[in-house]
């Protein structure tokens, strides 16, 4: 005959094992596992930082009326200054170590002389190029420039069409290396 004593201990054992399982589940669940789906969180922060950087570059110094650094950079096709300035803003951190954000900047504009065709040229690059597996985010900023930038190939020879103000879109891909 099966002895049916001590059933209470059996049930208590089951209850205790359930508690242990639940505790283990909570502990494991709360140690953050970084899945590809979670890159949204760091992408969001990167995007905010990038658009802030572009916005800062498109603000004239001390709030005075005049050209912003970004306008001057685009007008002169000065990709080195862009690179220095942008990397300085996004990579500065508290302390001495710097962040490792890389970027690739495009300038998009309408081609002369009929202003119908959209053209996009690579304007500036950081030292690392974008490789497969990098999660890049895109930020952009509108700039009104006084003339079509001198580096844009269709400008020479059409000086009259090049004059005047034009809106160009500066787009930056940025990612953390």
């Amino acid at each position, binding site marked *: 005959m099966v002895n*049916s*004593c001590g*059933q*209470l201990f059996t*049930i*208590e054992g*089951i*209850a*205790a094992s*359930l*508690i242990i399982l*639940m*505790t283990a*589940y*909570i502990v494991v*669940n*709360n140690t*953050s596992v970084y899945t590809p*789906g*979670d890159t*949204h*969180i760091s*992408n*969001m922060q990167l*995007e*905010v930082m990038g*658009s802030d950087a572009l*916005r800062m570059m498109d603000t004239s110094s001390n709030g005075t009326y005049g050209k912003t650094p970004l306008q001057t950079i685009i007008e002169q096709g000065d990709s080195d200054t862009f690179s220095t300035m942008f990397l300085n803003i996004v990579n500065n951190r508290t302390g001495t170590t710097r962040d490792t954000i890389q970027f690739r900047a495009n300038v*998009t*504009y*309408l081609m002369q002389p009929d*202003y*119908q065709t*959209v053209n*996009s040229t690579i304007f500036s690059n950081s030292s690392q190029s974008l490789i497969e597996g990098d999660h890049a*985010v895109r*930020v*952009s*900023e*509108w*700039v*009104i420039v006084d003339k079509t930038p001198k580096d844009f190939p269709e400008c020479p020879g059409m000086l*009259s069409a090049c*004059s*005047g*103000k*034009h*809106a*160009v*879109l500066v*787009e930056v891909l940025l990612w953390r290396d």
Partner: protein
Amino acid sequence: MARLNDDAQWIVLMGFVVSFSLFFLAIVLNQSVVVGQTTAEAVSEFPKDDIRSVRDVIIQSVFLDDSGTTLNRTHVQNEIQRLSLSRQGSTVNFSSNAIAGYTNVYIHYNNGVTIYNETWTY
């Protein structure tokens, strides 16, 4: 089983209560992680900076001089519309009219998900 021992049922009952409450706490914690992710997704999805930037440049363009052969305002406004459509996938429309000394600038932005309308007066 001749006789069922039904002593100490409270202990069993408390065991179940505790395990079920822990289970629901686990669900709450599990959901809280997803909330952080969907918030980040929603922030990335919403074109806040695109709208701000295009609004800025539209307002700047209203004050451009349109005389002579340079046609600054015409060019800039044409460029804003075309570049928005091709590079940001958004339809941008704007017009202005002057009423009794004030000028209203109507700004419309639509990227298929988010629609933004504004009347800006100066």
